[in-house]
Each structure stands twice: as structure tokens, then as C-alpha cells.
């Protein structure tokens, strides 16, 4: 039964967009909340169902071109996510889900497809697929350690004045202009899989703190071991 105090996590369209292990973002958030005594309730919203407006934290992941187009159509028609974000909810949008949040993105043949206009970005199909480890320094205002993750996409994303770059790319392609991802208010978009929040627990905590306020520190040694190994594997000495 829903309880008033639980953190409500909404995973949008896992039936369409969950191809790249982004379920891990949900699992990491649940785990890190519970370790601090915060109950969580997670709703998996299939694409035939309405997106609830009462969630605290929304997640959407990556996927193939066709499901991406279907997801954009349904989210636009549904309107639930728009209303939730307008009401102050937190959103992490990854890869195909990130592109959908903008005004347009590239379809199966590179044709422009309408996004849902939640973020002031537009994406198109780039010249080559960006596949590999990515490292980026996060915008200083967010006070987060280096981002690490794995990107796998063909998109180039242009940021408008309504958003700020999430990070500056050191290794990898990201948005295609030297930056990776974007954010505005409590909405974060990124190309990173890995999954993003497993590789970057501080980003997970930032999203949680936007919902639940200050958080007690956790033993992050497992996360840190993985982060250091991945960073060492791709950063020059």
C-alpha cells in the first residue's frame, strides 16, 4: 500500500526503453534510499499505461530507434510526465530518453522526429556511432566528482539557453560539442549508461537529495573501487 512518507520512483516505459541496463539506475536509487531508512515505492509504467503525476523521481532509459519514436509519441499524448515535472518532480533521462526530452531527435533514417519539449535541447543523427567509455568533469555548480560511464549512441545534441551543460567531456563524445548531458532545475539528461548512477553514486545522491533533503553518507567503497578502475582504464597517466 502506498504510504505518504515513501519516496515514489517512477520508471517510464521499461517495455520500450530499458535496453542498456538502465534498470540499474532504479536499483541504485532504491538501495541508497533504503540504506538511509527512506522507504521507496517503484512503479514500472508500461507504455500502454498513463504516467502517474504523483511520483517524486522519474527515470527513463535508452533503447532502439523505433521504440524511442513510440515512447515520444505516447509521452506527448499522455502529458503525465509534463505535469509531474511542472509540479517539481525530479527526472533523470538517459540516452534515447534524454533525446526525447528535447524538441526534436533523429529517427530511424535520420529524419527529424518531434520530442516532448521538456528540455531546451534538440538532437539529430551524428556522423558516426559514439561507443565507449566516457569521462567528464561536472559543472562546478553541482559540486559532483568526475562523471564516468559508457556511451552508445548516434546522437548529436545541441543545448539551448534554457539548459546548462551537465559536464565537460574529457574522454568520449557526449553531446558532440565537448560537453556531456544537460540539466535545468531538477531535470538531468545524459548519454551515460554503465548504468549512470551505479558509476556515479554522487549523482544518485544529488537526485535523492532533491526529493528527500540532506542525506547521511554511506560506505561507497564498492562504487569507488569500480570508479577508480574505470577511470584508470581510460584516462591518460
Amino acid at each position, binding site marked *: 500500500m502506498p504510504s505518504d512518507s515513501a519516496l515514489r520512483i517512477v520508471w517510464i516505459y521499461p*517495455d520500450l526503453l*530499458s535496453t542498456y541496463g538502465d534498470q*540499474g539506475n532504479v*536499483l541504485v536509487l532504491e*538501495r541508497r534510499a533504503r540504506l538511509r531508512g527512506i522507504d521507496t515505492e517503484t512503479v514500472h509504467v508500461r507504455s500502454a499505461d498513463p504516467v502517474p503525476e504523483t511520483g517524486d523521481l522519474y527515470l527513463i532509459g535508452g533503447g532502439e530507434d523505433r*521504440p524511442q519514436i513510440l515512447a515520444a509519441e505516447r509521452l506527448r499524448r499522455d502529458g503525465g510526465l509534463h505535469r509531474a515535472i511542472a509540479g517539481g518532480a525530479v527526472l533523470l533521462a538517459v540516452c534515447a530518453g534524454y533525446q526525447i526530452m528535447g524538441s526534436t531527435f533523429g529517427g530511424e533514417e535520420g529524419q527529424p522526429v518531434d520530442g516532448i519539449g521538456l528540455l531546451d535541447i534538440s538532437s539529430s543523427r551524428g556522423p558516426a556511432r559514439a*561507443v565507449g567509455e566516457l569521462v567528464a568533469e561536472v559543472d562546478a555548480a553541482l559540486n559532483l566528482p568526475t562523471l564516468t560511464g*559508457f556511451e552508445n549512441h548516434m546522437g548529436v545534441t545541441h543545448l539551448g539557453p534554457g539548459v546548462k551543460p551537465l559536464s565537460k567531456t574529457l574522454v568520449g563524445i557526449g553531446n558532440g560539442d565537448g560537453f556531456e548531458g544537460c540539466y535545468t532545475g531538477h531535470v538531468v539528461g545524459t548519454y551515460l549508461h554503465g548504468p549512470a548512477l551505479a558509476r556515479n553514486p554522487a549523482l544518485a545522491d544529488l537526485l535523492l537529495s532533491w526529493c528527500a533533503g540532506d542525506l547521511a553518507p554511506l560506505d561507497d567503497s*564498492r562504487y569507488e*573501487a569500480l570508479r577508480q578502475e574505470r577511470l584508470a582504464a581510460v584516462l591518460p597517466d
Partner: protein
Amino acid sequence: MTQLPLRAQLASALGRSAATLSRMTGRGDGSVIGGRVGLLLEPDLLRKLARDRKLALISATNGKTTTTRLVTSALLELGEVATNAFGANMPAGHVSALSQHKGAPYGVLEVDEKYLPEVLDTTGAGVVCLMNLSRDQMDRAAEIWLLAQKWRRALSGKPTHVIANCDDPLVTWGASTAAKVTWVAGGQRWKEDSWCCPECGGPLDRKDADWACRECTFHRPEPQWAVDDDVAIDPNGERWLLDIQLPGAANRSNAVMALAVADAFGVPVERALPRLREVTSVAGRYTTVERDGRYARLLLSKNPAGWLEAFDVADPQLPIILAVNAQGPDGRDTSWLWDVDYRILRGRPVFVTGQRRLDLALRLDVADVPFMLCDTFNEALAMQPPGRVDVIANYTAFQQIRSEFGRAV
């Protein structure tokens, strides 16, 4: 049987020499290098080697090597069979396999799912067997909806007889442009890639094994064959106790697919089934290796659907060693570990190794599954009490263990 043109004969012979060298020098089993040399000298070699043979192509995300082996065993009832038994499933491996059995009137070729259209075009194979499609090595593989679309185009307009698993909606869609399809209810354990209709994107309604799109007419075809636990049901409704030695539900499904393929070649169940029961281990899969009184059974598992199948086979009473790498053949992105539900391992002694053990360690930590982290497989094995232990490893981790313990199959 086939009289090859001189150039193709030379290419084929040189390829075999390279394969022999590769084996003698311990570099590999020779099935790829031999074919590469042959293809370099005669690009049309595969077409020429395939001509005048009766071929079956076996493709899927999981179970290709095993099903290829099962079908090969069944077709041995008819005569000599050329096959790429070691999983070299791209055209170089096919050339190598057919070169080594020039007189074989039959061929059973495992085909990488991305190469299926090309290999079907080149070989003109009469029979194609399609078992399942799910997410796999996303950093280098085509995405599976796109892949199924390519299968449709490749099968359209050809006389190919397809044997396909109708419990997998994406396979069904990929196969349904073929002129003739025998549908097999082979089961589907991993469903995370088939909640949406491949035809229109609408939601698929599922009830038990049955499925149908809520928005268009796409639905599960009526199967002619089915697997029911340890029983195969043939098109006449006759029930056959499988009783194969390969473990697990996935292999019982592979066996029924193999029986349907054998039937397409005219081998009846009563002759095919005893042949399937002779198969105990396939290219090292399910082999048990021993060191200092520790008996480790090796299970290969390359993607989330494969891990579900391995969990089905693994003995819950035994400790388990998990080994994960991320080299080229494994896929360099380990994100897929987060699609596997590891909670089933709670309560067993779990040991984690492999080059990407830190990824798996964090994954298990988040799933609240206690484990021991080990630098090497040998270390993990040495920590076991004498007796049996199960091992699940992905591709290169599995091959490393095999090469250390010998490649005896």
C-alpha cells in the same frame, strides 16, 4: 561429391593447411583462420562449397552452438554432416566447416544472427532454425528489432523452410515472411525484450504461453511442435520423453527445435531422439573440470537471457563462481549485468572473479547478495571445499577457464 573449380579447390586446400597450422601451434582450433585464408583467395568460396548440399542454418541469441550440435547429431542418421561445431559462426567459419567435409551431403551451420541474411543469400540453405532473440552485446551488435527486420527481408521471396520458436514474439515476426514455417512452442524464459508488438509497437497481451497484440492482428501462431517440461509433442500430438543429458529447460527447448529440424530433413523422432541423448557437452559447455578434488561444472552465459537459463541449471545446494570479462567478444559494456536478477543467489556461497569483477561486485552488493571477491578463477576454485561447484562465465572468461583446464570436449 561437389566438384569445385580449380581456384576454389586451391583456396579450400590452403585454408585447411592454415587451420592445421593453427591447431599445431596451439593458437586455436583453426576454424576461423582456415576459412579466412580460403575466403581471401576465393570470395565466392562459400557459395561454391554450399552448392548441391542440403543445409540447415541455426541462429538465435542463445543456444546456437548447442542446437547446431543437436541437429548435427540427428542428421548423422542420414549420412556425413559438415558443421562448425566450435561456434565459429561467421562466413569464414562456414567455409572452414564445409571445406573440412567436402564429401558431406548435409551441412548444419551455426550462424551469427547478424550474418544470417548474408549467409542465407550465399548458401541458399533450404532450412533455417530460429530460436530466440534478446539483448546481447549492445556495444557492437545490431539492435534486435532491427535484426528481426533484416531476417524478414532476407526470408521474403525465398523457398526456405523455417523452423521457428513461436513463443518468442520477435522471432515470430522475423520468421513470418518465410514461404513455409513450422512453428515450435519452445518456451521463452526472458521476456523483457518482448512486451511490445514488433509489428505495430502496441502492447502485447500475454496469457500463459499465448500472446497477441492489443492493437493490431499480430498474434502467436498455432504451434505444430511443443515442449512440455521433459516431453516433446510432435505435430500428431504424440508425446516423446526427451530424457536428454544436457541440463535445463533451455536445452529441452533446443532439443525440440532440433527434432523439428530433423523432421524437415525426413528424420523421424524415433530415429533422431536417441541421437540427441548421446550429446553430453557442447564445445565445453556443461563440462566438469577437476582440480585437487574440486569439480567445477562450466556454464556459459553471455547476456541476461543466458544468465536466466544458467540459473535454471545451477544447483541451489552448491556454491557458485561467477566470472565476467568485457573483451571484444563479450561486449565492452557491462551495463547488461544490471538486467540480470541475481537475488536468486542469496543464501548460496558466491565467488566473483573475471576482469570485470568490480562491476559484478557492485551489482551483487546493490542486490544484497553476499559474495567473496577473488583475483583469479584458480583462487576462487581453491577456496571451495572438496566437491562440486557450479561456474557461470561469459564468453572470454569461459574460454580462459577452458584453455587452462584443457580444451577437451
